[in-house]
């Protein structure tokens, strides 16, 4: 097992994490191959193995910094294969400050602007106040007294991404869910490469700031003077991250109001702008005292075709009416190619699509949906149907747009559940 890790890569990607991953993958490979076990013992073994998988991944990731942390976060969002404690630990790491020490901060600013942080800014906090995608955020004051949030990218992260992903693939291969997880990793890789370019993110942010005019929603202004490919300076918005905000024990009214804002942003961006802020991780929202919502981190934005935007309500309507023909024809028009005969397709609809549709449209049927009040967690139910979808091998092509759309939807629902919010869902989703 250990032979399959290219040593060149290992040597480059660093010491602690690399070795740990290597040791971990050997252990997993070993456990996965154990042959002489009775059926119950094997089942126990598998559960144990899942737990071990998560534990080893978690250990390795928490030692590596930068990409690995990000990948782990994405995987934990992505996949219901990870045990609950793993997802919980990972969601904590969203705003845990990773140790990008002062020497590297200094080096980066010098490299990008030819000045030390003290010279560039009127004030620069050497300690980061939040972690961000592939970097960390520092508070600073500009030369004209403007309060800034300065996002710094880990130096050399672009180089590290490929190496880390290669290691990750090697680690995943012997596990039980290799196929499913590896396909996630491919998408994650693509996204990481997009997110590495802060110029792109600055453009996205400015676009949303111009276009997204909703009451109570704030998109920070970009300060180009202090921004570069690896540094992004924005206006410093007030507010707390989700967990911290929840600790202040907000009223039900406040929860509902701000949850509704999140939902309205989603609906409005999709229908009005044909674009989604497609990274609904809790670290990307700021909850302010006055009920305003700050939107951060436009590294992952997806733009949708007019056709897609038009077809989504058709699909939802078909799901609500439980009309197999309409559902399938909507999927076809959205670009899904399934290699199945009519009968098989009908069975697929009955077994997989309809349960998914029932789950999906439940809140719409309710009109006003209380995410706090679900006996079994609503999103947990969703995971089950979701993973059914992911297992279908005969769907060769599902529009890429779909993946992000679903994920954003899902991420939002998870947020609502965490907030215990009650949301008005009767929108123009349905024609």
């Amino acid at each position: 097992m250990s032979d399959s890790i290219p040593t060149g890569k290992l040597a480059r990607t660093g010491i602690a994490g690399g070795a740990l991953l290597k040791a971990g993958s050997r252990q997993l490979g070993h456990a996965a191959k154990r042959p002489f076990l009775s059926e119950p013992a094997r089942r126990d073994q598998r559960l144990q193995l899942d737990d071990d998988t998560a534990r080893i991944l978690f250990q390795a990731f928490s030692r590596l910094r930068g990409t690995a942390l990000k990948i782990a976060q994405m995987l934990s969002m992505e996949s219901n294969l990870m045990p609950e404690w793993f997802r919980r630990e990972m969601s904590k790491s969203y705003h845990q400050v990773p140790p990008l020490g002062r020497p590297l901060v200094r080096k980066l600013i010098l490299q990008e602007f030819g000045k030390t942080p003290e010279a560039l800014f009127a004030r620069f906090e050497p300690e980061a106040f939040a972690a961000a995608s592939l970097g960390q955020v520092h508070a600073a004051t500009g030369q004209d007294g403007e309060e800034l949030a300065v996002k710094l990218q880990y130096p050399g992260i672009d180089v590290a991404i490929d190496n880390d992903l290669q290691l990750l693939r090697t680690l995943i291969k012997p596990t039980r869910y290799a196929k499913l997880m590896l396909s996630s990793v491919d998408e994650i890789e693509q996204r990481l490469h997009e997110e590495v370019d802060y110029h792109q993110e600055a453009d996205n942010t400015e676009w949303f700031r111009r276009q997204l005019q909703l009451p109570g929603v704030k998109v920070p202004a970009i300060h180009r003077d202090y921004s570069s490919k690896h540094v992004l300076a924005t206006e410093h918005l007030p507010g707390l991250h989700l967990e911290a905000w929840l600790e202040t024990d907000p009223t039900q009214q406040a929860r509902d109001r701000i949850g509704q804002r999140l939902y309205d942003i989603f609906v409005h961006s999709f229908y009005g702008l044909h674009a989604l802020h497609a990274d609904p991780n809790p670290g990307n929202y700021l909850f302010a005292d006055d009920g305003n919502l700050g939107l951060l981190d436009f590294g992952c934005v997806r733009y949708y075709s007019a056709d897609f935007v038009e077809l989504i309500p058709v699909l939802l309507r078909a799901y609500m009416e439980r009309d197999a023909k309409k559902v399938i024809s909507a999927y076809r028009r959205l670009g899904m190619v399934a290699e199945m005969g009519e009968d098989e397709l009908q069975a697929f609809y009955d077994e997989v699509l309809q349960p998914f549709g029932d789950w999906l449209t439940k809140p719409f049927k309710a009109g006003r949906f209380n995410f706090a009040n679900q006996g079994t967690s609503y999103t947990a139910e969703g995971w089950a149907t979701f993973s059914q979808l992911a297992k279908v091998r005969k769907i060769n092509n599902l529009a890429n747009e779909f993946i992000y759309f679903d994920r954003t939807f899902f991420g939002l629902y998870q947020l609502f559940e965490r907030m215990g919010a009650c949301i008005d869902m009767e929108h123009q989703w349905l024609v």
Partner: protein
Amino acid sequence: MKVSKQEKALTRKRILRAAADVISEKGYKTASMREIARRAEVGDATIYNYFPTKESLLYGYCEEKQRDVAEALTQIETFHEYSLREQLQQLTETELALWLPDREFLTQVFTLTFSAPVAGAVNLAETRRLFNRMVEDMIDAAIEAGEIPDQPYRELLAPLYWDYFTGILAYWLHDDSQDFANTTQLVDRSVEIIATVLQTAMIGKALDLFSFLFRSQISRHLEKLGDYTGPWKKAKRRFMEGESV
């Protein structure tokens, strides 16, 4: 005409700068004292008052670099607030930043030092002393502040860091990644390990173990280690006397 001390220092610097340029361009072997003198705008004879040999220019420049690094570190206002890990990383990064314009030159130094290790070690003694003094200062301050425990064989730590740093330089000289990102990562991660090692005073513990097992072998080898004798002698005495720490 009497030349003031200050002027002398400036001339010295100018000659070293010129030497670095000429050696970078032409290579050590083909660079001539005459050309260096001309580039530095000093007389053909004057240069010998400052540097008797071409070799002394080569190593003189390395020493000068250490003084520049020390100076650059004192320019960082909050440097004393840095943790030991941050200080060591800053030292390494500052070295790399200041060596960057002279990467070619450094390659020459490496080639010469590796082809004649003994002579190289002797010639670099002063450079190493200056470097080690910076590291010792940082470690001493960290111990005094209680950031790390007192280190057994403390006098060995700076020479070890020097060896580590030489390795980093060699890696850097072969690094072809953009912005030398691979070196940055290597430094970032390895310094963390070093900090952990210091935190646990592991080197001392490991050495104690080795001293128990290999006392005689080590001492025999120590005799041959010419240049490290200062610190090693002390360490050796400690080994031999089994002095507890």
